[in-house]
C-alpha cells in the first residue's frame, strides 16, 4: 500500500492509502468519539459524532467513512467540530428517557460515557416523536426501544455477522427504531438468538433478557472456551462471586472472532443449577437398577463421603476383576471432558483396570469418518479449517445442518455466499437454512448417499472434469475406482436416490472445476450402516478433483462435542493409545509399558454399542461412565436399559443425576466445564487452553483427581499436582501433540500435528503428501439401509438435533430461556403425509418402530421430504432413540441413527 502524506492537528504524518480519518486518528491516540462505529461492522457514517474539519472542504467530514487523501490538513478538535459534537450529543441526551440511562447489564453505555466526558446537558426540548417501549416477548433477547439511539449497529450485526436479516431500522426520521418484520416476536421473525446484536449495542437497547443487572465493578471477566460444540469458540465469562452473569464472544478467538450461538451465549446457567451433584451418592440397599416410572431418582440414593464412595467403587471393581477378569469391565469417556481428564481415564482403564474396553461418543458421531479418512488419507481428522471458508470458491455441505449444529461456522458460510465469494452445494434430504441459499440442493432419499456421491464422480469423469495431474501424482487405486463407477449414470442415480439427473450434473460441474472447493460433512453422512462407505465416497471426490491438500479445500467432518476430537486424540478408543498408536503394536505397547510401569492389554476392546450388547449377553459385568448418558444418546434405548440393568456394578461420574446416572450404584460428583482448566481440541484440531471461572459446587471434584484417587486405591498410584503436568505427559507420549505444551497455548491455540516442542502446528493436512503416502481411492457400491419403510412401518425416520438444545439436554434442559425457545420434541412431517394421516401442526402423535413407541407433537412442514419424518433425539420424554436401529456399520461400528422405519398415528 502506498503511503500518503497528510497532517492531523497540525502534525505532518503519513498513512497507507485507504486508511480512514478515524483509523488514522485512533492509531495516533487522538480521541474522536463515535456511536455508530464498530470495527466489526461496515462503517455507516450515521451518528456524525466523528466529524472532523478538513481545510478546503466546506462541510465537516465523517471520519469513519472518509479515507485520508494526500495533502489533507485535518483538525479533529476545532471549534466547529466541537460544536457539532456537542450539539449532536445534546440532541441525543435531550431525547433520552430518564429511565433508560442505565446501560447494558453491566451498566455500561457508550452514550452516557460521552455525555459525562463532554459534560453534556439536556439542552433541547424533546421532540416527543421518540418511541419508548420494551419488547420482552423473547425469553433471551429483549429490545428496549427507549434506549435505542438509532445507531443501526444491531441491524448491521444481524446482516453482516449473523446473516439472519431479522432486525432493521424501521420507520422514517425521528421515529426510526430497531424492529422485526411486522413487529413480530423475535423468534417468529427468524431470530436464532446468537446475540450478535446484543454484543454490538452501545447502550443496552438490545439486552440479554435472562441476565441479571450487575455493576461492572462487581464482576470478573475470564476468557475460556465454550462448553458446547466442536467449533471451539472462545468466550469471555463474567462472574459475580460464584455465579456466571454474562457471556460474550472473544474477539481473539480464532474459531469465532467474537461470534457465539444461542447455546454459547445463553447456555451457562446449568453450571450453577440446584440440580448439580454436590456429594457422592450410593444406591440404597436392595433397590432395583431400573427405577419404576415416575419415581424421583434422588430417593434411590443416599449421600456418602468421598472416602466411602471411592472405597466402595475400588473394592467392587477389584472384586469384578478377580471374579470375571478385566475385560468384564467397560469404560466410557467423555467428549465433554478435557484432554487431561480423558488421558487419565484411558490410562486408568488400561494400566489400573487392565482393559481396552474404553470408548466414548465419538463412536456414535464420526467413527465412520475417522475410519474412512484413515483408509483414504491416513488421518481421520478435518484436513482444513473453517477459517479458510472466505477463500473457497465452492462450499459443498453434505449431510449436515450447519445452521443448527455448528451455527458459528454456518455464519461463515452464509457470509461467503452473501459476499458472492462462494457458490454453495447442499446435499441433505431435509430442507435446511443453507439449502435455501444453495445453488444446488441435492435431496436424496435417506440412505442413498453412496449412489449420489458415485454419481457425482461418474459425471466428473464422463465430462472430463477430473484432475488428471493430481490423480497421477498423488493417488493410487484410480483404475479400479473408475471401473466401479460405470453403473452410476445420472439416470440410474436418479432412480436409486430420487436426485434429478440434472441436479447431479449441475453439482458436479460446480464442484469439480472450482479453483478451490471445500467439503463439510456431518452425521447425515456418518450415522449409517454405510457410514464408512459414504465418507470413502466423499474422499474419492476430493482425490478425483484434487480438492485436498490446498487451502480452502479438503474433506472436513464437523465434529460434534467440544472435545470429541481431543478425547479420541488422547486414546479414549478401544484400539488405540493417544495419538492413534494402535494397542496391538508391540513397540508402542512396550514404550508405554515402560513409562506406565504396567503390562498393557494387547487386544482391541469393545466399542460403545458392543459394550451394551456384551452387558445384555452377560459377558460385561461392570461399567464406569464418565459423563456419558447412553440412556438417551444410544440407539434402541429399550435395549440399552435392559442391558444396563443386567450389570453387577455401575459407576457414573457426573454433574447431574441423568437418566443413566439414575441406574448407577455409585455416583461421583464431578466438575463442569466452567470449573476446569486444561485443554480441549476443536473440530479443526486446534488445541486450546481453558480457564476455570467458577469453584466446584459442594464436594464436587475434578474428573482427573477422582480417577487418580481411584487408581491409587486400586494399587496403581496416579498422582499429578495440577492439570498442566498432565498436558505435558500427553505431549511426551503423543507424537502429534509433542508441541502442545501449556506455556505455548496462547489465545490462538495450536493445531496438531505439532511434532516438536517448538513446532508451530499444522492448519492444513496432506499438503505435499498424504499421511499414508498416496491418497487411496476406494471403490464403494450402493447398499440399502438396514431397515427400510414397508407396509407396516411406512415412513422413514431421520434423527438429529435442533439449534437450541444440546444432546441429552442434561445441560440445556436446565436453562429456562433456552427451553422456552425449544420446549418439546417436534415430529416434522411433510404436508402430504400429514394430511393422509389426518395430522395437523400441534397434534400429538405416536411414533412407533419395531423397537418402541414415543409420543411427540407434530410439526407439518416441507422441511422434511415426503415419506420421511424427522425427530430430534434430545428429549428423554420423546426419545427418538427408543425408535432408532442399533444396526452397525461393519468397519466403524457406528449405529444407523439416520434411517429406520416408523409408523405415525394420531395419539389423541
Amino acid at each position: 500500500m502506498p503511503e500518503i502524506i497528510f497532517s492531523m492537528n497540525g502534525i505532518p504524518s503519513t498513512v497507507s492509502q485507504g486508511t480512514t480519518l478515524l483509523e488514522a486518528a485512533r492509531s495516533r491516540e487522538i480521541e474522536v468519539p463515535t456511536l455508530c462505529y464498530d470495527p466489526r461492522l461496515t462503517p455507516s457514517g450515521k451518528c456524525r459524532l466523528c466529524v472532523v474539519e478538513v481545510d478546503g472542504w466546506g462541510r465537516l467530514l465523517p471520519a469513519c467513512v472518509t479515507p485520508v487523501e494526500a495533502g489533507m490538513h485535518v483538525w479533529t478538535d476545532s471549534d466547529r467540530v466541537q460544536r457539532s459534537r456537542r450539539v449532536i450529543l445534546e440532541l441525543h441526551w435531550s431525547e433520552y428517557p430518564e429511565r433508560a440511562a442505565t446501560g447494558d447489564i453491566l451498566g455500561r453505555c457508550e452514550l452516557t460515557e460521552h455525555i459525562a466526558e463532554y459534560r453534556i446537558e439536556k439542552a433541547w426540548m424533546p421532540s416527543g416523536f421518540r418511541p419508548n417501549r420494551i419488547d420482552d416477548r423473547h425469553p433471551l433477547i429483549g429490545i428496549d426501544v427507549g434506549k435505542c439511539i438509532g445507531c443501526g449497529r444491531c441491524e448491521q450485526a444481524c446482516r453482516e455477522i449473523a446473516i439472519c436479516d431479522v432486525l432493521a431500522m424501521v420507520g422514517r426520521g425521528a421515529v426510526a427504531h430497531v424492529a422485526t418484520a411486522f413487529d413480530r416476536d423475535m423468534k417468529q421473525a427468524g431470530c436464532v438468538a446468537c446475540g450478535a446484536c446484543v454484543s454490538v449495542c452501545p447502550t443496552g437497547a438490545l439486552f440479554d433478557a435472562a441476565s441479571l443487572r450487575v455493576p461492572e465493578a462487581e464482576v470478573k471477566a475470564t476468557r475460556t472456551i465454550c462448553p458446547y460444540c466442536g467449533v471451539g469458540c472462545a468466550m469471555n465469562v463474567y462472574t459475580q462471586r460464584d455465579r456466571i452473569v454474562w457471556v460474550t464472544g472473544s474477539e481473539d478467538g480464532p474459531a469465532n472472532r467474537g461470534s457465539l450461538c444461542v447455546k454459547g451465549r445463553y447456555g451457562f446457567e446449568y453450571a450453577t443449577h440446584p440440580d448439580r451433584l454436590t456429594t457422592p451418592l450410593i444406591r440404597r440397599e436392595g433397590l432395583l437398577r431400573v427405577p419404576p416410572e415416575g419415581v424421583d431418582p434422588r430417593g434411590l440414593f443416599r449421600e456418602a463421603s468421598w472416602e466411602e464412595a471411592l472405597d466402595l467403587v475400588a473394592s467392587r471393581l477389584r472384586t469384578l476383576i478377580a471374579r470375571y477378569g478385566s475385560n468384564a469391565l467397560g469404560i466410557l469417556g467423555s467428549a465433554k471432558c478435557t484432554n487431561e481428564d480423558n488421558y487419565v481415564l484411558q490410562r486408568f482403564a488400561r494400566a489400573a483396570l487392565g482393559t481396552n474396553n474404553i470408548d466414548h461418543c465419538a463412536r456414535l458421531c464420526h467413527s465412520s469418518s475417522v475410519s474412512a479418512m484413515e483408509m483414504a488419507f491416513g488421518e481421520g481428522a478435518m484436513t482444513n479449517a473453517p477459517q479458510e471458508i472466505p477463500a473457497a470458491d465452492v462450499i459443498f455441505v453434505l449431510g449436515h445442518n450447519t445452521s443448527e449444529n455448528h451455527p458459528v461456522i454456518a455464519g461463515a458460510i452464509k457470509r461467503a455466499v452473501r459476499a458472492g465469494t462462494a457458490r454453495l452445494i447442499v446435499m441433505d434430504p431435509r430442507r435446511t437454512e443453507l439449502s435455501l441459499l444453495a445453488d444446488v440442493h441435492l435431496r436424496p432419499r435417506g440412505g442413498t448417499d453412496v449412489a449420489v456421491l458415485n454419481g457425482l464422480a461418474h459425471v466428473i469423469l464422463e465430462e472430463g472434469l477430473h484432475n488428471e495431474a493430481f490423480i497421477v501424482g498423488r493417488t493410487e487405486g484410480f483404475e479400479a475406482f473408475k471401473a466401479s463407477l460405470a453403473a452410476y449414470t445420472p439416470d440410474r442415480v436418479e432412480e436409486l436416490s430420487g436426485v434429478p439427473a440434472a441436479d447431479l450434473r449441475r453439482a458436479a460441474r460446480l464442484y469439480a472445476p472450482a479453483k478451490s472447493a471445500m467439503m463439510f460433512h456431518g452425521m447425515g453422512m456418518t450415522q449409517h450402516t454405510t457410514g464408512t462407505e459414504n465418507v470413502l465416497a466423499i474422499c474419492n471426490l476430493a482425490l478425483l478433483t484434487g480438492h485436498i491438500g490446498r487451502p480452502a479445500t479438503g474433506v472436513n467432518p464437523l465434529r460434534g462435542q467440544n472435545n470429541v476430537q481431543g478425547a479420541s486424540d488422547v486414546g479414549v478408543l478401544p484400539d488405540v493409545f493417544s495419538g492413534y498408536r494402535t494397542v496391538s503394536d508391540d513397540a508402542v505397547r512396550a514404550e508405554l509399558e515402560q513409562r506406565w510401569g504396567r503390562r498393557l492389554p494387547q487386544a482391541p476392546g469393545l466399542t460403545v454399542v458392543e459394550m451394551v450388547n456384551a452387558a445384555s449377553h452377560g459377558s460385561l459385568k461392570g461399567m464406569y461412565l464418565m459423563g456419558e448418558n447412553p440412556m438417551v444418546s444410544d440407539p434402541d434405548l429399550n435395549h440399552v436399559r435392559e442391558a444396563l440393568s443386567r450389570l453387577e456394578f455401575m459407576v457414573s461420574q457426573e454433574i447431574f443425576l441423568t437418566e443413566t446416572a439414575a441406574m448407577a450404584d455409585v455416583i461421583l460428583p464431578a466438575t463442569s466445564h466452567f470449573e476446569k482448566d486444561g485443554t480441549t481440541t476443536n473440530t479443526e484440531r486446534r488445541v486450546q487452553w481453558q480457564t476455570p471461572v467458577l469453584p466446584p459446587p459442594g464436594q464436587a471434584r475434578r474428573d482427573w483427581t477422582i480417577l487418580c484417587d481411584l487408581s491409587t486405591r486400586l494399587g496403581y498410584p496416579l498422582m499429578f499436582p495440577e492439570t498442566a503436568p498432565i498436558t505435558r505427559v500427553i505431549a511426551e507420549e503423543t507424537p502429534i501433540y509433542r508441541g502442545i505444551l501449556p506455556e505455548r497455548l496462547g489465545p490462538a491455540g495450536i493445531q496438531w500435528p505439532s511434532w516438536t516442542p517448538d513446532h508451530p502446528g499444522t492448519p492444513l493436512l496432506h499438503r505435499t503428501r498424504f499421511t499414508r503416502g498416496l491418497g487411496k481411492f476406494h471403490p464403494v457400491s450402493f447398499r440399502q439401509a438396514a431397515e427400510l419403510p414397508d407396509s407396516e412401518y411406512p415412513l422413514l425416520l431421520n434423527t438429529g438435533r435442533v439449534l437450541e438444545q444440546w444432546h441429552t439436554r442434561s445441560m440445556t434442559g436446565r436453562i429456562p430461556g433456552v427451553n422456552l425457545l425449544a420446549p418439546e420434541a417436534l415430529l416434522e412431517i411433510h404436508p402430504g403425509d400429514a394430511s393422509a394421516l389426518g395430522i395437523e401442526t400441534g397434534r400429538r402423535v405416536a411414533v412407533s418402530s419395531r423397537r418402541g413407541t414415543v409420543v411427540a407433537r407434530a410439526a407439518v412442514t416441507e422441511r422434511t421430504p415426503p415419506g420421511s419424518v424427522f425427530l430430534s433425539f434430545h428429549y428423554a420424554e420423546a426419545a427418538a432413540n427408543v425408535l432408532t436401529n442399533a444396526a452397525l456399520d461393519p468397519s466403524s461400528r457406528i449405529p444407523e441413527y439416520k434411517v429406520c422405519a416408523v409408523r405415525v398415528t394420531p395419539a389423541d
Partner: protein
Amino acid sequence: MTPPDLSALSGEEKARLLRLVERWQNEPAALLTMILEIQEIWGYLPERAFEYVASALKVPLVDLFAIREFYDLLHGAPVPARIGLCTNTPCAVRGGGRVAKLLSEALAKHPDVGLHLEELPCQGCCDLAPVAVLPVDRRPETRDRSVTVRLTTRTASRFARAIEGGESDLFSRLKSPVSGPSTGGRVRLTPTRVAYRNLHRPEAHRLDVFRAHGGYATLERVLRTSSPEDMIAAITDSGLLGAGGAGFPTGRKWGAVRKAPGDQKFIVVNADEGEPGTFKDRPILERDPHLLIEGAAIAAYAVGTTQGFIYLRGEYRLARERLDCALAEARGAGFLGGRIAGTPFSLELHLRLGAGSYAAGDETAMLESLEGRPALPRVKPPYPSDHGLFGRPTLVNNVETLAAVPAILERGPAWYRGLGRNGSAGVKVYCLSGDVTRPGNYELPRGLTARELIFTHGGSARRKTPLKAFLVGGASGGFLPPGELDIPLEIASLRAKGADLGSGAVVVVGAQSCLLYLARRETRFFAKESCGACDPCRLGTPVLLGELEGLLDVRTRARAEARIQELGAVLADSSRCGLGQVAANPLLSVLRHFPDEIAAHTAGRCPAGVCGRGPRRA
C-alpha cells in the same frame, strides 16, 4: 422458511399477486414498482402478500416491512376515505390553512361522515393552490381512487356545509368537476423554446406529432455523425446546469461517467419531482415524454451506457401512463432497444416508480430506492458517477436537464449559452406560485431578476396585497425580503444571500401571510421527511420546531434565536445530504431578513392576523 400460506387469499387476488411477481421478479430495479402494483390489489399491503414476495424473491421479510414503513404511498392497513390537503408554502399562502381549519372543524363535529383529513406533501401542481386530493372510489370511469383539485376557501365552506349535512361524496359538490387525472403544472408560454419546446403544441405526447416537428431527428443525427466526446464537449460548452436543484454542470457530469472505469454503466432520469413549489417536470412528463426519451438516449450514448431507468414520482399517474405509452412507441419505432436508428448503439430504458419520499430527491437516496430499499442517501464520496446504481458508474440527470439537450444540440451550444442574462448561461424553468395572478411554469433566462419574473410575468401581487417576501428554491430556499427583488435568479447570487435557486421554484408571499406560520410548516415538512440516515437531521429537525415556539416568548426569544443559529450551523456542517443541510434555512431566513415579523409575534401580534393563538405572556 417455508413458503407462505396463500390459502387465505381469494382466487382472483392470488392470481393477480402471482402474475405481478412473475411479471416483475426478474426485472432490474423493480422491487418498489412491483410493491406499488401489488398494493393496487388490496389498496394496502397485507403481511401474507409480503411473505409471498419475500420467499419468491429471496428478500428478507424485514426489508419489505422497512420499505412499507418508510414510504408514504405504501400502507399496512386499508386506507380510510380521506381528503388530502397540501400544507406546503404555495398552498399555505393561498389559504390552505383556512381550508384545513374549515374542514377539520366540520369533520370533527360529524365523524359519522367517515372522512379523514390528511396532510400531503407538495403534489407538484402549485399553480392550482390550494390543492386537495379527494376520494372518488365510487367513480368507475377513473382508474384512480382520488382526484387532485383546487380547493379554495369558498369551496371548502361549501364542503363544510355538505359534511354537516352528512354528505361524504364531496367530489360531486365541486362546481366544475375535473375530468381525467391531469391537473396542474400549467405552462406559461415564453419565447424561449428549450426544454419546453413542444409544449405549445397539442398532442405532442404522440410519437407522430413529436416526429412531425423534428422529434428524434437530433438523436438520429448525433448517433450517425457525432462521437460521444463531441456530445460531452457541446454540452459542456453550452453551460447547461443540472435543473434538479444542485446546479452541477451537466457536461462535467457526463464526462465523469464516461471516464469512469466499468463495462456496465447506467443512466437514471430523476423524475421524482417533489421539492415544494416545484411542478416544472410534470408538463414534460405528461405532454412531451418523447423529448425526455430523446434527451436521455443522447446522454446514454454520450456516457456509454445501454441501460437506463426513469425514476418517476409515484403520485404522477398521468405521467406514468404517458411514459409507458411513449416508451413502447419509441421501442416500436426503433428509438429504443437494439441498434437504434440503424447504428450499433442500443439502449433499454425502464420506467420505475417512487413510493412517496422527499428524501429520494437526493440522487444517492433515489438510487437506494431503485435498488429496492428505503431512500436513505449514501455517504458521498463516492459519487454516482463512479459508484452509482448497483455500484456501477451512473449518470443521474433531471427531466428538465435532459429535455434541454436536443434543442442545444440542434441549435448549438453558443445559441443556448447566449440565452442567459447577467452573466449566466442558458435558460431555466421557473415555477411561479403563491400570491401572483398568473402562477405557472416559465422557461426564461437564467440570471433574470426576481422582480422581472414576479411582476413582469407573474403579475403580482394578487389582490393588490403588497409583496411581503418571496421564496426561491422551494422549501430548502429561504424567504427573501422585497428589498432583494432585483437579485438575479442565479446560483451564486442567491447563495450569497443564504438562499438557493434549487429546482427553480419561486413562491410569492403576500402581506396576508404570516412568515412564522410558513416557516413552521416548512420546518415541520423537513422533520417529517427526514429519512433518519444521520443523527443531526434525524434528531435536529424535530427539535427546531420546539425552538421556533421559543421565539414567540420575550423571555426565551434571544436564547431560541441563538439555538436556532447554532443548530442550523450544525445541520449544515454535519448532515449527510441536502435535506438536513438546509432544513433550518426557512427559519434562519426569517431570523435574518424579517426581524420585525418576529418582534411583532413576540409582542403578541401577528402582522397578518394568521396565528390563531396569541403570544405567551408572563
